[in-house]
């Protein structure tokens, strides 16, 4: 046939182009030719990607709280102790990231670009539900590849509605009021399930989120260092001071 007998991850531009056409007609996403690859057997990689985290988000009367640790690990080495796992997408939408750092950072950037284009074309901001659907559909062509993105989108839509969606690169898209994602999530869930109520004050909610991440960093090897907390209200997102989890353990 026309395929080269030596296959080591080369991408065939002709076969991959039909993936782009299955997306929504309004959106013409510009990918480099041959991306995503359709038939590449995976090249054995000589390095590992960064994984492992604890992120969480929940809705309460004061809006949405999103919290995450800041450790970025790579097969046992802490590649970065001060990484940003909560990335603002626009003034009223924040996304927590878990999985491979590069995938999360780039796909959030692509999502921010597409949301901005939507806003310019249609004169209104896309809802959190719409952003979640957009992200899920953008990731769909990569299902089955080694792409790994597990994000929660926390936003405030037009009226008085805080909104929380979980989107994953395997195709999951869920709406909810409480999510925790990552290797440390079981520990965070146990703390949150005991404390989250609709009627929490902002201070109580922030401190509960910090406690949950701190407990997870204590038990999970791949989570650690500091805790980032973001609070989303009708006025937009506000970032709280980054607190060191180690400091907290010595000065409770």
């Amino acid at each position, binding site marked *: 046939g026309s395929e080269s007998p*030596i296959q*080591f*991850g*080369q*991408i065939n531009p002709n076969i991959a182009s039909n993936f782009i056409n299955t997306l929504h007609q309004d959106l013409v996403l510009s990918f*480099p030719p041959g*991306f*995503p*690859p359709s038939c*590449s057997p*995976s*090249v*054995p*990689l*000589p*390095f590992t*990607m*960064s994984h492992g985290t604890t992120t969480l988000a929940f809705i309460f009367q004061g809006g949405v709280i999103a919290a995450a640790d800041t450790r*970025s690990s*790579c097969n046992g*080495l802490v*590649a*970065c102790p001060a*990484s*940003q796992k909560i990335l603002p997408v626009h003034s009223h939408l924040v996304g927590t990231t878990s999985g*491979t*750092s*590069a*995938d*999360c*950072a*780039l796909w959030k950037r692509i999502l921010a670009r597409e949301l901005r284009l939507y806003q310019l074309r249609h004169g209104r901001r896309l809802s959190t539900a719409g952003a979640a659907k957009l992200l899920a559909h953008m990731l769909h062509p990569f299902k089955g*590849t*080694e*792409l790994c993105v597990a994000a929660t989108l926390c936003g405030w839509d037009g009226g008085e509605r805080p909104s929380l969606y979980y989107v994953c690169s395997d195709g999951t898209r869920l709406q909810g009021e409480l999510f925790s994602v990552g290797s440390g999530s079981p520990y965070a869930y146990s703390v949150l399930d005991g404390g989250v109520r609709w009627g929490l004050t902002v201070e109580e909610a922030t401190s509960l989120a910090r406690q949950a991440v701190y407990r997870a960093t204590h038990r999970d090897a791949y989570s650690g260092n500091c805790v980032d907390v973001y609070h989303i209200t009708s006025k937009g997102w506000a970032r709280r001071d980054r607190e060191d989890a180690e400091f907290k353990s010595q000065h409770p």
Partner: protein
Amino acid sequence: IMFATQVHGDNGKMKEYHYTGPVEHRFSPYSFNGGTVLAVAGEDFAIVASDTRLSEGYSIHSRDSPKCYKLTDTTVIGCSGFHGDCLTLTKIIDARLKMYKHSNNKSMTSGAIAAMLSTILYGRRFFPYYVYNIIGGLDEEGRGAVYSFDPVGSYQRDTYKAGGSASAMLQPLLDNQIGFKNMEGVQHLPLSQEKALQLVKDVFISAAERDVYTGDALRICIVTKDGIKEENVPLRKD
């Protein structure tokens, strides 16, 4: 010339020589050529340093192959990992810099180069460039900036970062000496250019002692508003 088989293992370090049974060998397009890169950002300067040893397996291909590449008057990039990908990547970056200069009539800033490199690396997400990049330079306000990358494009701005084969040895030392981590009761003095330079030399001498892929010589590029100055320091050749 070395044929890059699985003898070198997945992370580039040599595998043990004992018979474990029949093994299927596969051609790997990657090879690990060693080398360490380090970048430090100061108040009004940035230092990018790398060793100059190019190795593969048990051999040394060259003792004079520095891993710092000058991009603009205010930016230097250090690339370590697979030398073939380092060369191609720097050629691509140079071409993109020229294109930008011709379309926009100005040079790319360090932050812009970092953002662009992230997209270049991610464009090869499924057959990555096996390169650990660190960009050092001055930002638009004249302050030192260091951007560190992973092979697929995840990046962030740092004050200091070590990359390459001895990175796991150097990074904790830098955390302590520049970041003042895990020390109590010390005054956090800002880093002067002389102190940073001496620290970089000391740190590479230590790395050459303990890492077999680091040594021969040290090439230091010091970026200030007056331009880029280069310095060469000999290291252990064994």
